[in-house]
């Protein structure tokens, strides 16, 4: 990303959410983006996730400048290359986990057949450890389980980048560790690039690299020194009633 700028006009005031951000992200990186609210990290995520366009600057995704893409081109690119995980899960209510996971496939240009969709969604639910709950609706699942469904949904089109916006924000510590374990495993085993937006430093320590935003600029960019391993931490936790 080269000199990314984004400004909004709110009433008479122009708000500069990003004031020139330069960032280069290698494939397979687990990046944590931290910053207080209003630091510009959400805007950064929206642009990275192709939900928004920069006012100036360029965004190169796999060498291709996508900053000028229109709405529908960005939609297709999101569909193929980017998976989203949100703080509030954003699952479709009264819809089974399986159908929620299938959703992005419906919008693929070459949508697979219903049978293929079911098979793939089921496989991904198995990966996140929710195979047996495929036919439950979100209201029948715990927060951690809902977030796993959301992760499975984000992965269903084999994206390059997984964008996780405060994925543990609504979860307790134990469940947070479980979610981070899933993300670390996906990053390690499948080589998926993960961008984790958070305001908690301890959550950022699960990543390889930590970028701090303040007032629309990157103020620190460092490798995580003592990286936390969620799998080990979970094993060390006292046994509780299993959540999964």
């Amino acid at each position, binding site marked *: 990303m080269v000199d990314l700028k984004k400004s909004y006009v709110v009433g008479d005031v122009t708000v500069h959410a990003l004031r020139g951000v330069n960032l280069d992200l290698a494939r397979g990186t687990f990046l944590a983006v931290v910053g207080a609210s209003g630091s510009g990290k959400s805007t950064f995520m*929206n642009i990275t*996730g192709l*939900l*928004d366009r920069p006012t100036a600057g360029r965004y190169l995704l796999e060498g291709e400048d996508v900053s000028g893409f229109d*709405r*529908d081109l960005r*939609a*297709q690119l*999101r*569909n*193929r290359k980017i998976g*989203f995980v*949100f703080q509030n899960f*954003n699952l*479709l209510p*009264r819809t089974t986990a399986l159908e929620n996971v299938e*959703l*992005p496939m*419906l*919008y*693929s240009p070459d*949508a697979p057949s219903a049978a293929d969709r079911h098979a793939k969604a089921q496989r991904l639910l198995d990966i996140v450890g929710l195979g047996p709950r495929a036919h439950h609706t979100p209201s029948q699942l715990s927060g951690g389980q809902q977030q796993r469904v959301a992760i499975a*949904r984000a992965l269903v*089109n084999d994206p390059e980048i997984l964008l996780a916006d405060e994925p543990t924000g609504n979860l307790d510590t134990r469940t947070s560790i479980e979610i981070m374990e899933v993300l670390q495993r996906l990053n390690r085993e499948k080589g998926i690039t993960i961008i984790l937006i958070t305001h908690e430093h301890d959550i950022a320590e699960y990543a390889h690299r930590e970028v701090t935003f303040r007032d629309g600029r990157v103020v620190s960019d460092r490798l995580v020194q003592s990286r936390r391993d969620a799998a080990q931490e979970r094993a060390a936790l006292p046994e509780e009633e299993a959540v999964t």
Partner: protein
Amino acid sequence: MKIRNVLRIALVAIRRNAVRSGLTMLGVIIGVASVIAMIALGSGARAAIDDQIQQQGTNVIYVSAGSFGRGPGMARGGAGSTTTLTLEDAQAIARDVPTIARVSPMARGRAQVVAGNQNWNTSVEGGNEDYIVIRNWPLASGADFTARDVLVAEKVALLGPTVAKTLFPDSDPVGQIIRVRNLPFRVVGVLTSKGQNQWGQDQDDIIIAPYTTVQKKLLGITFIQQIVLSATSSDAVEPAAVEITKLMRQRHKIQDPNDDDFTVRTVAEMAATRTEMANTMTMLLMSVASVSLLVGGIGIMNIMLVSVTERTREIGLRMAVGARTRDILRQFLAEAVSLSIVGGAVGVLLGMSVSRLLTTGLGWPTVITPTSIIVAFAFAGAVGVFFGFYPARKAAELDPIEALRYE
């Protein structure tokens, strides 16, 4: 996105809010049902008119005394009010217009009729022996009176079924004596039933006798009120009518058509007027029915707008995972159209049952045509597209970031 998936999502969304969807559809259902029923009623009325033309005979021409003058400042009494139409006119037409097959003069009045202890007031029409042939009115029993009966003004009568039933509830009227204005008439035949006419008048409440008898013995007049004629074929009706008009003007020495003291009408012409009236009525009812369909459409738009607002987060999510503008547009349009199409289908069924009910319950003739079903159905679909478009576009144009953040 594939159309099949779009439809599936739409139907799932509709089922999810079953009660709300049902109530929304109700508007379209009522609209379509009333359109169907109104068209059925209109078609039924037209069919009944066609039926009546067949009954009356398509070749019939009426020449009535009097005219509906259109000139300014003229006082006109209307058909039947003048005394200038005569037997000689009838004979002249029969002689000079070659395309005329049969002619009968007609004189008409009301009279009190008595048989035994039964008493009845009815219309007495006098014609010649061809009168019931021209009017395409067969006998149920007995025989028509003869040319000789007409010549000598014999007191004989044919009874309409209503009169026959009233005067002779339990016996065969043929051969019996009735008293018409206190004169004894011999019943020679009973007519078949024609039922009610267009205006609900009982056509069977009638006595037909020789016109000579009616003129001299009942009414004491020498003129006639009408000449009833039949042309040789239905194609000959119009030219015959023109020729008759010409001949009559000549005989009555009339220069200006506004001064006509007679009126020539054909059954086809009368039927055309009635059909036009039926069409006007149908159009009127149809437009009222269309308004309810329109209201139904507005109901759909309303509920779709609510639905878009309620599902803003869902829309944002769908966009985030790759739904393009047109995918969202299609999804909501499909929902609106499904509502209206399903409503249309139910409305068609309801409309058909209502039509049947109108026929069996009220005796109004109705005809359901495939065209009316297709038209109503297509109209319902169009309403869905029209009123679904605005909410769908609103949904499709949402900003994904805003939509995802929507609470």
